[in-house]
């Protein structure tokens, strides 16, 4: 059935020259990402001034915030993949969805863990059930459930259809993380970017950066690295891995049927 749709990994193999170009491009992107991470860390940990209220731990911010937006991009890719799969039933869109969720979970975990580590010296607790923190944890669990539920469905078509729908609906948990601190007045998690629609003074800029020079540059570079370079590079690698897995699976099926 998949072969009829022109999406079978064996029948849809790229020409060798195109594959080689892709490999070169991915290699270049990977090297660029590695250098980007190193440069971003240098800017955040060395060049940017120290926040005089919070001390060095404030520098986690250069990873914490951009990694959330990196996760958002990856989860967004899962939504695109899900919509396109439901429309076209092409296997590659499901692959994009799966890759998006896996990479998104990793980046969301980075966001969650760095946030908890930052909170320990600043809020004097690793964790509290603040609405935004709770929404963030729910988001990670929602996507972790995606992977578990997906692996529990044997029929490939059912699995992909379910994953597509789940991946689209799960994105509401990402939106909740963005919306909650803007509308709930009791949140203590500050809104750093974008408008606020609540009267909470803490949400309205409680996280002030009283750092010296280099903060904007460090934040900008780390945004590029964590929001674009890392998720796109990892997505690409994960898609290639899935293509390889599908190819092996197809060969196994072929070997068993012959």
């Amino acid at each position, binding site marked *: 059935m998949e072969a009829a749709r022109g999406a079978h990994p064996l029948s849809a193999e790229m020409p060798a020259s195109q594959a080689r170009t892709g490999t070169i491009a991915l290699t270049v992107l990977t090297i660029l990402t590695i250098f980007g991470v190193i440069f971003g860390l240098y800017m955040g940990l060395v060049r940017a001034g120290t926040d005089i209220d919070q001390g060095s731990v404030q520098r986690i911010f250069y990873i914490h915030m951009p990694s959330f*937006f990196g996760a958002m991009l990856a989860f*967004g890719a899962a939504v695109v993949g899900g919509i396109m799969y439901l429309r076209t039933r092409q296997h590659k869109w499901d692959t994009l969805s799966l890759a998006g969720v896996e*990479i998104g979970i990793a980046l969301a975990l980075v966001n969650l863990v760095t946030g908890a580590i930052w909170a320990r010296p600043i809020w004097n607790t690793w964790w509290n059930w603040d609405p935004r923190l709770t929404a963030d944890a729910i988001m990670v669990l929602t996507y972790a459930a995606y992977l578990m539920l997906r692996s529990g469905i044997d029929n490939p078509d059912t699995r992909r259809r379910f994953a597509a729908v789940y991946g689209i609906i799960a994105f509401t948990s990402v939106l909740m993380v963005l919306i909650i601190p803007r509308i709930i007045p009791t949140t203590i998690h500050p809104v750093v970017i974008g408008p606020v629609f609540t009267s909470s003074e803490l949400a309205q800029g409680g996280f002030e950066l009283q750092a010296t020079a280099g903060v904007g540059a460090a934040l900008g570079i780390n945004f590029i690295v964590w929001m674009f370079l890392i998720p796109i590079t990892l997505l690409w690698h994960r898609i290639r891995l899935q293509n390889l897995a599908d190819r092996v699976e197809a060969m196994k099926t072929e070997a068993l049927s012959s």
Partner: protein
Amino acid sequence: MSRRARLMIAAALLLAAGAAFAQEAEPQRDLVTLYSHPTERYHVFIPPGWRDDSTPQFAQIERGTTQIVARSFPAGDVEAALAQTLTEFLPNLADLTPTLLDPVTLNNGTWQIALYPPEEAGTLTGFVQRFEDVTYVLLMFSGADSRPIFLPIPADGSLSAAVEAAAGLAGFTDAAVINEGAEPVEVAGQAYTPFTLTQGALEINAFARTVGGSAFVLVHGLPDDAAIFSIVLDFFITPETTDYLYLGVAATAIVLGLLVFSMFLRARALRADLRTLQQLKADAA
């Protein structure tokens, strides 16, 4: 990947970028003038109108005949830190021995006031805080004989009683408040209530305000010297949180490292499977 697919991915990227950078301009906060020690992590507020003579080693500000210095000392006891500060900045008064008042806990730590005996040239008052085995000293010399004192507000909650108690600590043991001014005096952005006290024929002025459960009283001298209270209250120390930064970076490396390592292992296993399957296919052919 088709052109349409690429367009969809590009649209998703733009959507995410738009969400991240959809910023509204936030109003710029007024920046206060601060002295920040380059290595000792303490910061001293410099009130408007005060001359800043600070160096990288210590903070030093002046206004008229009043001079305030701030220094830090690793470990050491309070008396030793005070003595060293005095020796460095006012060596001609180095022989003076202070009387230490009971510690008072404020928002930024527990402070102890050191009252030196009055000298002909002026009065000397020290403020000391210990934090993470470092002693921080603020020493104020007032040529106008100002005596800044903060103390817990007495049980009756009256500022007048606090002023009389502060005057007693400053050496005016029999002073009594005879007048509480209606018009507050503003110093360093804070309003102080003026008081007049008498001790026999001697008339003493004072300026006071409450902060939480404490009364800040400037006994005698010029109201401008009450700026020391703002300096003490705004004094802050950057916490040492570098270990948490390292922990955060390590946690990030572990999470992403595990992902990359798992992808590497999966890819290696799949390639091995692929080679085996290709071999089987070739053997079958």
